[in-house]
């Protein structure tokens, strides 16, 4: 549904996108994660036809973003990371305005607006002025706005940003519901555990490149060959951390309630060698196991070399 090939974008001397390749399957919820400045917003802006790439190509539902921007706009609903609303417009007028802007026939609009407000739990705000809504309500209204023309693809840039936990949970439920409506969703967020819950696939971006991509289970399980080890010893935990840190295969070491959480990149032989070295170093090992990671840990493992070490 979304296909990006070798996309470049530079802002002066800064490279925002560096030969980005990305593919989002039809009907999936694809989470784009990465540190600030990784290029997520730039990639999304290009896909939303708001920015021109310096090179490469991108297509949404078979429409090239450069040569067919209007066709692309017809199939996407875009929600930017920061957005405002119009003062002096009621919720129903706000949605009616955007429906009109997408050439939705007037005869269909009233019913459509009612349905969309119901979908985002804002039915009781039909006649409220949009500038008086809470931030969470505005986010939900923006999501409804994205859906006025029944787009096939939703591009949501940090939709949960700045929301309280309750509002985030509500938004998460709505996004899950969108999947049932057969929408393809490209979503970026820095709240990784939540992204892990709603996404089918994730892509991890760093320095303008997609360094890892695939189903959430695969990413959290493998993470480009990296694994999360939990090592527990009887005593001298801090000393063990210092002993492990400089080793080649170790990405990061964290102390967690008397145990160590080690992100380790290597084959079973090197893992075995690590265990042997610890034992030979004089530590009494009570636990040495690979643990299942969440998305945040997978993200740290994949981007860890640049970030943590």
């Amino acid at each position, binding site marked *: 549904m979304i296909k990006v*090939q*070798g996309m*470049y974008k530079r802002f002066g001397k800064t490279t925002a996108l560096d030969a980005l390749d990305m593919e989002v399957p039809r009907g999936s919820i694809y989470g784009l994660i990465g540190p600030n400045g990784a290029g997520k917003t730039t990639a999304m*802006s290009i896909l*939303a*036809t*708001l*920015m*021109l*790439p*310096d*090179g*490469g*190509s991108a297509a949404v539902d078979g429409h090239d973003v*450069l*040569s067919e*921007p*209007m066709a692309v*706009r*017809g199939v*996407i609903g*875009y*929600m*930017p990371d*920061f*957005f*405002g*609303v*119009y*003062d*002096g*417009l009621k919720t129903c*007028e706000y949605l009616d*305005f*955007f429906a*009109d*802007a*997408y*050439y939705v026939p007037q005869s269909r609009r009233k019913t459509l607006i009612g349905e969309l407000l119901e979908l985002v739990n804002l039915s009781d705000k039909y006649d409220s002025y949009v500038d008086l809504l809470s931030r969470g309500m505005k986010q939900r209204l*923006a999501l409804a*706005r994205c859906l006025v*023309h029944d787009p096939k693809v939703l591009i949501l840039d940090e939709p949960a940003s700045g929301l309280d936990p309750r509002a985030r949970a509500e938004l998460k439920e709505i996004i899950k519901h969108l999947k049932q409506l057969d929408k393809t969703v490209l979503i970026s967020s820095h709240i990784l555990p939540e992204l892990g819950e709603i996404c089918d696939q994730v892509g991890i971006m760093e320095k303008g490149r997609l360094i890892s991509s695939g189903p959430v289970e695969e990413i959290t399980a493998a993470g480009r060959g990296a694994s999360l080890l939990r090592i527990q010893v009887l005593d001298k935990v801090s000393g063990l951390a210092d002993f492990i840190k400089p080793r080649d295969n170790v990405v990061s070491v964290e102390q967690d309630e008397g145990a160590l959480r080690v992100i380790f990149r290597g084959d079973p032989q090197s893992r075995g060698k690590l265990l042997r070295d610890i034992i030979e170093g004089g530590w009494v090992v009570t636990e040495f196991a690979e643990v299942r990671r969440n998305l945040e840990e997978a993200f740290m493992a994949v981007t860890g070399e640049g970030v943590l070490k």
Partner: protein
Amino acid sequence: MSVNPVLLKELRQRFRTVKSPLLVSLYLLVIGALVLGFIYLRWRDMPGYYRPDTSREIFIILSMVQLFLVGFVTPGLTAGAISGERERQTLNVLLTTRLTTRGIIVSKMLSSISFMVLLVLATLPLYNIVFLYGGISPSQVLGVFGFYMVTVFLFAAVGVACSTYFKRTGVSTVTSYGIVFILGLGTLLLGGFIYEVLRVPGPGPYQTPLITQFLLDINPVVVMMRILGENGFGPERNIGLPYWAVYILFYVIAGLLLLLWSSSKLNPSRNKGLRFRM
């Protein structure tokens, strides 16, 4: 016929608030106070009767005050048209709809112009005072109103273009006022300067340079005085077109070019010839 949604929204937003009737009232209050004040002063000096040439003076004062207000209000109305959307962070969302940038620009322009036209038309009853005493023909009044429309068009286009180019409304507003000031006073000063520089000292008639004639033909103050029948205003002309035709052509063409440029500048996909590097 369907109305562009941006125009509909803008009109709805503009005319829904209490600010609009307040601004119309203030506008009428300023113009009305000046005119009625002038009438009072004239009447106080010569009580009991009223001369037609006095009503002509009122007409000129009324028209000049209105021109000044048009130059003052129009850029203020349009200089935030696009930059305001940018500052409110609503522009990106608007640009991802199926509306064309040309449609957005024209709608923004029309909504601002419609309000300005409302302000100008609201002053029509004040012009009745002039008719009451005679001395002015309806064609002159129509000419002045047509002149306002053309002037508002370019001033509004300047505001929209500045608003598209500059990110901040403050910068856009100052630049718009600067350009309007150049049109209102700069052309007059430059025309006079060029006239003096090129003038050959000595007796005998001296033909005003074409550039000076042109600069005076596009100066709103000079053109208004000519419309009002002050034929001695400005030098002899030998441009093939009448002054009002030069004025209309320049203001309409410049306004259209600015609008075209603005819609092109606003379009995020404007570099269609860009070659992709694979």
